[in-house]
């Protein structure tokens, strides 16, 4: 948390994102998380969606919004939107979304919280696992009482 605090101190609003993305709007329109963060079901990383993913729905004009125009411009330029990742997994941690999402059937919100209600893009780390106390969040499930399905051996996750 020291890092986050300092980040806020140094730069009040975190990093700017290229698009005023509204999670809530998408959720209210019944777009599930995995539609855009598809690799969360199949891969290790959930990843930020490529602009081609946005285009699947925003091919035609849905809203008269300058933000939607940015999607079309990004597709045309071929350069993508250029999301700024705000969270990077520690290299010494093995974390697989597939293991949690598909195999463990854990809802996204269990770790990521109320992203569905968010109306602005992430400018600071979105995960409870960011910062230095991150492992505490893991241990909410990975403790002795859940050891039947959540490993508690260090090397299950450390590498």
């Amino acid at each position, binding site marked *: 948390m020291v890092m986050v605090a300092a980040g806020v101190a140094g730069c009040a609003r975190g990093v700017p994102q290229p698009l005023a993305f509204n999670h809530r709007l998408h959720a209210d329109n019944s777009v599930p998380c995995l539609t855009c963060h598809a690799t969360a079901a199949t891969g290790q990383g959930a990843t930020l969606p490529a602009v081609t993913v946005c285009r699947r729905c925003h091919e035609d004009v849905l809203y008269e919004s300058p933000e939607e125009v940015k999607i079309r411009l990004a597709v045309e330029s071929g350069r993508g939107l250029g999301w700024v990742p705000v969270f990077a997994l520690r290299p010494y941690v093995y974390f697989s979304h597939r293991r949690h999402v598909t195999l463990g059937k854990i809802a996204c919100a269990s770790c990521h919280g109320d992203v569905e209600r968010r109306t602005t893009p992430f400018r600071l780390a979105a995960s409870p696992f960011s910062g230095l106390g991150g492992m505490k969040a893991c241990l909410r499930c990975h403790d002795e009482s859940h050891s039947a399905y959540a490993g508690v051996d260090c*090397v299950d996750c450390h*590498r």
Partner: protein
Amino acid sequence: MPRWGMIIDLDRCTGCGACVAACKVENNVQVVSPAEGEKGRRMHWLRLLVETRGEYPNAEFRIVPNLCMMCDNPPCTKVCPVHATYQGEDGLVGQIYPRCIGCRYCMAACPFSVKVFNWGPPEWPDAMRPTLNPDVSVRQRGVVEKCTFCYHRLQLAKERARAEGRPLRESDYQPACVHSCPADAMTFGDLDDPLSPVAQLSRSTRATRALETLGTEPKVFYLERRDAPV
């Protein structure tokens, strides 16, 4: 739960060094500068102990691949003040780098000298960085590291088996050194499965373990070299 173990057949081992290179690359083990190397700070999780015996022309290299023995009764874990090296549920000796404070007690405790210390920051030219193995962290300066039996491969194999809805098979998981061996001198598997090749070989009359009298119960077995039949 499987009890992972390794058999190294010294009769087959030619000392070619493939395991050494495979380990080094697989685990992003740091290459130290030549000057540091001269101080004995070269880092290998797996090295070859070589002894040259005899007189010319019957000089012989006795070569023994030396790696973490994954003791059932590991001396190193008992001295770690911060629980950075510990014995896991499946009997493997883990080394958790973010916990390690670099006191090197475990190195002193290890009778096989298989632990190495990061004396300097890991240095790779920028161009080479992208080819580092993403499954293994790059250890920072000041921690002790060691062979993990390529545990990251087990992490992936477990998940893959689960995703395919089947139990983990012995063949799903093999450390890089075992896979690399061109002479097939290394065998890896579950010592507790009586039918597995490792369990059978571990009962061979040629099977021996390093410094057995210390009672550390290594899970790496060596099959002794046989004398020439001629």
